[in-house]
């Protein structure tokens, strides 16, 4: 379970996260939606113990992430937005390194690597240097690295980036499997239909604040819109702005 209470993060004069509070239950997929620069990634980095909050508290499975960042990292699987893996290592080397640092048992690591390598179909790349792999394959390696220790909480920042439709479907199935096992998942994305498809609840973050929260149906009711894209534009008060730009573009053709 994840509990975020009155979270604030300030970078100099910029308040990147402003009084964010939400909760993700066990066995729930929570979607964090928001425009670019809205504070999604910063919130997720605080949850994972990578950044410290300026104010507020985050508890992951009852562990305070700012007080015990390494204990939180032990229970979390985190797929960051940008894939900055060791380019000079092979996925085989990287999985062994991650397994060693996380203290995963021999048999468990072996079975989990083989399971995910088959699922994501990257067997032929196991001994290829990561630096020479395509973006999509790097993303698969990043996802597998986050899943190796069977985390009880999974945090994915734009986790579907670079995946082809077949792999995206496989990842969705893995996420549903995690959910069925009672694990908490936070999924941040810009792809609104995807969020609608997989998330139980959505939190809409705008200018560092959670401006709306609920199931897709609740958000539709809240904004009186019938599709999720319009819900997003309505709630972030950007619908008129977008329509204006679209109109201007049409006129310049």
């Amino acid at each position: 379970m994840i509990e975020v209470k009155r979270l604030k993060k300030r970078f100099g004069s910029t308040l990147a996260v402003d009084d964010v509070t939400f909760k993700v239950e066990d066995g729930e997929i929570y979607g964090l939606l928001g425009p670019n620069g809205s504070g999604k990634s910063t919130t997720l980095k605080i949850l994972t113990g990578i950044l410290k909050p300026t104010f507020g508290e985050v508890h992951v499975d009852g562990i305070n992430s700012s007080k015990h960042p390494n204990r939180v990292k032990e229970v979390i699987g985190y797929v960051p937005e940008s894939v900055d893996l060791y380019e000079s290592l092979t996925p085989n080397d990287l999985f062994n390194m991650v397994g060693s640092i996380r203290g995963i048992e021999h048999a468990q690591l072996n079975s989990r690597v083989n399971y995910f390598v088959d699922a994501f179909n990257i067997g032929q790349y196991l001994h290829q240097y990561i630096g020479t792999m395509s973006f999509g394959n790097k993303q698969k390696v990043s996802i597998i690295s986050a899943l190796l220790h069977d985390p009880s909480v999974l945090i994915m920042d734009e986790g579907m980036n670079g995946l082809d439709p077949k792999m995206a479907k496989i990842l969705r199935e893995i996420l549903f499997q995690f959910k069925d096992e009672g694990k908490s998942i936070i999924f941040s994305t810009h792809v609104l239909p995807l969020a609608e498809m997989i998330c139980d609840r959505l939190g809409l973050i705008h200018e560092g604040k959670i401006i709306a929260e609920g199931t897709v149906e609740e958000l539709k009711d809240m904004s009186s819109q019938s599709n999720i894209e319009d819900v997003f534009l309505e709630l972030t008060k950007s619908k008129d702005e977008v329509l204006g730009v679209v109109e201007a573009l049409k006129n310049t053709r």
Partner: protein
Amino acid sequence: MVKILYRELHYQMAKENPMVSGEKEFNKQIKKSMDMKRNVLQQSMIFLLFGTMTAGSIFVAEDEAMVVGVLTSLALIPFVLSLYQTTIQASFLTSLGIFEPLKPLPVELGGKYMSGVISVDLIPGFVLVIPAVVAMVFRAPLSGILTLFWMIVAVLAGHVIGLGVFALFGQKVMNYKGSLSFLKNVLKVIGLLLFMGLFFGVMYFQEYFAAYIGTVADYPFVFPVSLASVFEPLNSLILLVFHLVILLPLYFLSLRKVWSGILEPAITSPGKVETDYKISLRTPIVSMILKDLKVIGRKTSMMAGLLFPLYIALPQMFLRVRDGRISMVDMTYLVFLVGIVTVAGADAILKVEGKSMSFLRTLPLSKVQFALGKALSMSIVPMFVGVGMVGLGVYFSVEVIYLLPLVLILPITAAVVTMSYLFRYKGEMIGVPEFDFKKMILLFLIVGVVFGVVALPIIFMGGLLKYILSPLIAIFITSILYLRLKR
């Protein structure tokens, strides 16, 4: 453009620096570290201080032979610094992706920008020899001006060889790790050593010719011994032109090769591809060491930086083996020297992380595990060098074997002192602390003091006990620092 790239490099470095916590401090730090003029000036001042000390001997030296002796050894400093800095920085700049935004732009010879950014860091090394040049100008104006040009040649030669190492060994990309990867890496190291050893080889031939042909000794033809010609201006000028005629085309050739390698690295693949997962679990620290060595194994030019103790030890051992005399005092001095230069390896071993630090931060890795892993990684090469030296020394004098415990512990002590200093901040955050020439010199001094304490029994005691007591002191100091790091 160089200024923009320099700022970007230091911005990226400041971002990974765990000593900088909080936005206010970060902003202050990036403002400081991105200030090119300030950095160069600050580091140059320290080097100037060292340079002034050495220049004194040129003033007081009575004969010209002594002066050229000092100049020749002095010229090796900017040469080695330039070589070291170029090989390490070239690899680091590329791994940080500094040149990625330039790739889509119509840039003719982008390698010149890499050379420019690296050259900024070569200025302090050059400043070190300025007092000697000034002293020479007072002594013999024309020779002084020639000395200045020879020192420029020293920096240029180191830079060209460094770029050459990077272009030849650091840019080929192997697609897959084949079964012969380890062997290939070993061959790369040997190739690298031969390449870097070219100058020592040439120096040896110079001595050989001098001894057997005699007349050549009056016309030393290859840097750094060619510096001996500064009191014969015409000969010196001819030799200078000869060096520039060779170095400048090589420089532009390297720039071209470096840039084409950045734009499109040559990728090779083995015939057969393995698809099985080969599991190998280790403790976090061992797995970090293996990771560092694997990454460095692929970044050959970075390996050049890690092999620094070898460049110090090899010529010294070579001279002693050639003379057939290896005394215990000599060997003790060399063992401590190799121990001290372990500090320099911190630069390469920290820069291994590049942009991947963000990935490492997602793992539950403690600061002490990270720092100790780095300390042990940087100790490996000096330990092997030391063991090799002792092995060779035993052939000449059996008692050298008593130095074996020191050979194994001194690099670890130096590395743990280095990491304790760099990771002295509170908290568990891991990252890449700033490690510039200023810090390197400071750490050389700190390690020097620590080694002074370790050496006390050897200096003041007799018998075999001193060879037991001395390593025990080193182990004690290392353990204290380890516990402090763990706190």
